[in-house]
């Protein structure tokens, strides 16, 4: 029964990972850019929720959309003025640019919010079902993550703009020839990714402590998830996130949290070496 408890706990965590990785994955798919600042976008999203909760005691579920909208706007600005300029440039430019942004945002957060650990103690306690106990905040975070991931999936699959995003990530030249405004697609994709990171951040704030350097920890996990599921595969990344969430909690259960930290990196390296296209990915 213990093990079932651990697995469920891991699955719930995986939902939050999924929503974070989805943004990073879509951005990579459309622009072939690894956004090293994605963790910091998440951190900012978490702090928005924290600020509203701390200042006015507003329910994090209400601030979640506010946080998403704010980061969507920030994403638009970043893409318009910074990221757009390195699209199609050598890999190094975008890596260094987004790393610079990540350092900059961390520095600002350190100055503004200090390095203290913060948390949004909302919905503590757990529900018991039989012998299982489900952390209420984790369950809520999972449900929200699932809903948002589902919405984004529908958006990508069904809507006209979603199709444009998918077309651009498959073949930007052809998409453009077919009348897709590729520049606008890139703009919206980055903003959408930032908004998803903000939602993930807000959910994380309900579960864990937040601090300005939290992004570093999550971005490593996100790489592992994306590689596990296959770059550019939305469903694959979702499955990868759940697998990683369970893997990590199991490793923490069997060994210790130190080694559990290594699970994502070990998975990342192994999958890259053995099966670079991931388990659901499309071969490039």
């Amino acid at each position, binding site marked *: 029964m213990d093990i079932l408890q651990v697995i469920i706990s891991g699955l719930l965590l995986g939902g939050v990972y999924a929503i974070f990785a989805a943004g990073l994955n879509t951005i990579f798919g459309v622009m072939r850019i690894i956004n090293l600042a994605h963790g910091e976008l998440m951190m900012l999203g978490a702090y928005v929720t924290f600020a509203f909760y701390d200042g006015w005691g507003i329910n994090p579920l209400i601030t979640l959309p506010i946080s998403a909208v704010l980061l969507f706007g920030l994403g638009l600005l970043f893409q318009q003025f910074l990221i757009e300029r390195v699209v199609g440039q050598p*890999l*190094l430019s975008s890596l260094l640019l987004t790393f610079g942004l990540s*350092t900059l945002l961390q520095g600002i957060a350190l100055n503004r919010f200090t390095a203290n650990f913060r948390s949004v103690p909302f919905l503590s306690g757990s529900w018991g079902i039989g012998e299982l106990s489900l952390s209420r905040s984790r369950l809520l975070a999972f449900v929200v993550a699932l809903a948002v991931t589902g919405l984004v999936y529908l958006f990508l699959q069904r809507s006209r703009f979603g199709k444009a995003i998918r077309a651009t990530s498959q073949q930007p030249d052809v998409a453009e020839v077919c009348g897709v405004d590729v520049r606008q697609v890139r703009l919206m994709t980055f903003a959408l990714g930032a908004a998803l990171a903000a939602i993930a951040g807000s959910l994380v704030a309900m579960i864990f402590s937040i601090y300005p350097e939290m992004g570093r920890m999550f971005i*490593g996990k996100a*790489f592992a998830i994306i590689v596990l599921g296959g770059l550019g595969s939305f469903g694959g990344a979702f499955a990868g996130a759940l697998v990683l969430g369970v893997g990590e909690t199991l490793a923490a259960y069997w060994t210790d949290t130190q080694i559990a930290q290594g699970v994502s990196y070990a998975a990342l*390296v192994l999958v*890259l*070496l053995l099966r670079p296209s991931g388990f659901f990915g499309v071969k490039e």
Partner: protein
Amino acid sequence: MSVGYSGSSSPTVPGRVPARSSGGRVSPGGDAVVETPLPPAGDGEREAGTPRVVTRPLPAWERHTGAIYGVLLAVAVVAMAFLPMNANDYTVSLAITVLLTICLASSWNLISGFTGYVSFGHAGFFGIGAYVGGLLIYHGAATWYVAVLAGGLATALVAAVIGYPTLRLRGPYFAVAMLGLTELASIIVTAWDSVTFGGSGVFLPILYERSERLTNYYAMLVLAVVVAVVSYAVATSRFGLRLLAIRDDEGAARAMGINTTAHKLGAFVLSSFFPGAAGAIYARHTGYIDPPAFFAVIWSIRAIATSMLGGQGTVIGPILGAVVLTLVSEEVWSRDPNAYQIIFGGLIVLVVLFMPGGFVALLQRVGWLPRSRRL
């Protein structure tokens, strides 16, 4: 006769041949590239402009770059050798940081500047070298310079083992794999506390004598000189030319008969020796090693940002970048540590956006430096 070109609409990395260039040709000596730049591939709406091709003969002194560098190096080395006699410990420590940054940046440049494979592994090599060298010193198993060499050789060995599978990965996959491996190395070192003392770190013997402390400075100086000479040797050799070919188009390079795997691996192993040895020296200098400090991704970033600031794929670029970046960093840090991260991050953003080729490309655009592979 060699000719250089300058002034296309998009900033070009020095010596880089665009993937689609018509009539791109390299003269037998590999001195200059004559080419007609085409608009960048794949970006219809990106402003192409009309490429303004200016051909300008390389200056006569370009042939003597080796001799000029030799003289500059000799002057610099003599000056650096006498520096500790008129300087306090703080200045010497700052100079060690400059030399360390030169080692990291120039060696990173060997793999990433020349082949285009962006490596985030330098932090990992730095940490491994520090631990191998540091533990040897801690246990008194080796004299310090043997320990430093061992640190470098250990990382070269690690690079040979991990390079073979990882260098098959292209572009972003390689970058992410090296990031993951560095984190993994850090976690292994932390978890393996029977050997590495885990998170509590290793305290190395304190060096009480100034002359003893200065050995770190001179060791770092020697390492920096070696990496500079190796960089020049690689840049002017056929080996270096083949690495550049891999950077510009790996498929074409292979089709030309270059054993790309062997060349990438060779450059990777060569490049990894220096961060390892430098890590061991730096461990001895600081006297304390722990995983978060020595495996921090910032060591890789430092190498990358420095090379980019100076001019990646050139010999002088990383050295120039190391001196400027370290001194500016130190100044900013001493004035306001809180603002440091913001300024450092902002600086990186500005360099990427406005100076992608670094100082060298800037000077080339102004016409003060020729577009030569020997730089």
